[in-house]
């Protein structure tokens, strides 16, 4: 037998028995105390303002005078507000172009820079640079490049034979302003999503391509039947992020067009900003914010459902 049992042990001092229920409560409190610092910060700076904004959507408030209950006034106002209509459709147009264009450009870049080409890392850095560069700095450069009269882009177009009267006015032209903002957004963000796609591409087993080679697939068929389906989870993530980001766009518009000319590039968040901090109608701007929230929520739910259904169909 072991000698461990022979060692004399001193009895523990008697402790008051703790009931099982109390022990559970104590355990829970300990756990809560660990998440408290983060949760308190989230509650004060995020959750509180969100709840307040929801409530404010049904109030009148100019930020200084007392808050008054407005019922559905702010809601009805949405239907008569032409600027809101413009902002709503501009947001849809912006998202409708930015999401697919960024998806295509970032995927194309990722596929290109996943090949064994000379200077691959340099080009990856170049593609990623706009994302990390200061928005203010790149917007200034962009505005210079696309300046209707002195910008090098129009100069090149002119050299290529475009008639001076047909040269685009870019950010200054109401017909071209949205296209300018869209191009800027795609260029600025594609590097970031390229990195995500690169990670996705590197996760695809090379054996699948070899199997496809043996099966007789061409380069294009391998992309269609192996790469794209294998990247589906990445594409889903990228598109969810892009859609949310596009609906929330503000800073890029602010730096390039300030929503103009007229309302040609005015988007929902810009309208919220104008209503809240230019017109000081915090109640109505909260209502627009609520509409934006519901819009993003519905689209994201639809997207998740669609992906789930597709997965089950092919399972």
């Amino acid at each position: 037998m072991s000698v461990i049992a022979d060692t004399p042990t001193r009895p523990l001092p008697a402790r008051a028995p703790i009931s099982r229920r109390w022990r559970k409560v104590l355990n829970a409190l300990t756990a809560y105390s660990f998440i408290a610092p983060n949760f308190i910060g989230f509650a004060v700076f995020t959750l509180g303002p969100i709840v307040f904004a929801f409530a404010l959507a049904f109030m009148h408030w100019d930020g200084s005078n007392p808050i008054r209950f407005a019922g559905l006034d702010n809601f009805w106002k949405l239907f008569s507000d032409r600027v809101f209509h413009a902002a709503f459709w501009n947001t849809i147009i912006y998202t409708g172009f930015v999401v697919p264009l960024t998806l295509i450009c970032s995927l194309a870049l990722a596929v290109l820079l996943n090949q064994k080409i000379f200077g691959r890392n340099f080009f990856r850095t170049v593609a990623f640079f706009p994302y990390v560069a200061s928005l203010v700095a790149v917007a200034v450069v962009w505005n210079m490049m696309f300046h209707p009269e002195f910008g090098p882009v129009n100069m090149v177009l002119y050299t290529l034979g475009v008639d001076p009267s047909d040269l685009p006015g870019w950010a200054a032209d109401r017909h071209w302003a949205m296209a300018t903002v869209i191009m800027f957004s795609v260029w600025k963000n594609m590097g970031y999503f390229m990195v995500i796609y690169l990670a996705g591409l590197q996760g695809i087993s090379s054996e699948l391509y070899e199997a496809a080679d043996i099966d007789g697939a061409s380069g294009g068929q391998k992309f269609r039947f192996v790469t794209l389906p294998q990247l589906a989870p990445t594409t889903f993530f990228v598109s969810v992020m892009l859609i949310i980001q596009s609906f929330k766009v503000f800073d890029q518009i602010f730096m390039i067009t300030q929503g103009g000319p007229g309302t040609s590039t005015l988007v929902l968040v810009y309208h919220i900003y104008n209503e809240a901090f230019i017109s000081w109608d915090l109640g109505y701007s909260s209502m627009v914010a609520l509409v934006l929230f519901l819009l993003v929520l519905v689209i994201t739910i639809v997207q998740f459902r669609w992906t789930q259904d597709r997965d089950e169909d092919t399972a």
Partner: protein
Amino acid sequence: MAGISLHKLRKSFGALTVVHDVDLEIADKEFIILVGPSGCGKSTTLRMIAGLEEITSGELIIGDTIVNDVPSKDRDIAMVFQNYALYPHMTVYKNMAFGLKLRRAPRDLIDRKVHETAEILDIKHLLNRRPKALSGGQRQRVALGRAMVRSPAVFLLDEPLSNLDAKLRSTMRSELTKLHRRLDATFIYVTHDQVEAMTMADRIVVMKDGHIQQVDTPQALYDRPTNMFVAGFIGAPQMNFLPVTISKQNGVPVAEFDGNSLPLPTRLIDRVGVDYAGRDCVLGLRPENFHERPPIDVDPALTVPVEVDVELAEPMGAEVHLNAALRSRSIVARVSPRCQARAGDRLTLTADLSSAHLFDRETERAIGA
């Protein structure tokens, strides 16, 4: 006709050459197995045949055509990968139909072929499942099925059983042999498992460090290995090697081992001749060449009693593997399950030298081979 010829086939990655000027003729409808330890170049050779690896130099001929620059899809081959490489987003049906679909085969032909193949492989009930919902053995069958639907002239199999458990592996071995007979196609199979090689192949190619060591039928490899590597690689437990010196006793060459003279069979005496007198050699004895009692069917002049110290007895059911020390040399003897020897016992075994092998210690080549 799908005979395959490898003429001076070489593969180098920069300065490193992994396959050295390999010459091999594979007959039409042959089941040939490339075997060797990891890094011996067997998979690279297979991948060159598949067209997945560029050939550095030499010629690869399938049928009558040099296919060095012919893409994989035009070589009339199919391949089964070690990790199956099934398309995870496609159902079993789509995985199997993919090759035919890319070749624009009519839909009803694809359907018939897939169902016929699924029937043969007993995977009909799995056709609508995706690979992640299959077990290892089922995936293996699907991978085989994908290769079979195109009815290629050559099947290339890269360690296809290595991910299966021992029992399933043995079942699949016999199924693959039957499948080869049924399909009537050339099979080139890569493995590091000499049991797979011995049980399935018409001929085995033993490779080491990018060189072919020997090409022969399984039994010929076992009986007449051309060098110590092949002798050690083929057979489990592996052949025992004892350092000996050749000397002459009454004009007859014998092998001197640790002060004892071991007689040599006539077959070896003829080969040793006069050249090897006084030379250092290695005597090779298979584990089954050690017996507990003197064998009755062997010339007593070719048997010697050897005293061994048992270090470990491994009962295998039908036999016992005795790991023992013979004058400080470790040997393994395969004896009957009746043998009661335990670790620490001293035992006298009879070494049967009638089927002994003799190798040159310097070149490691079989003497007279």
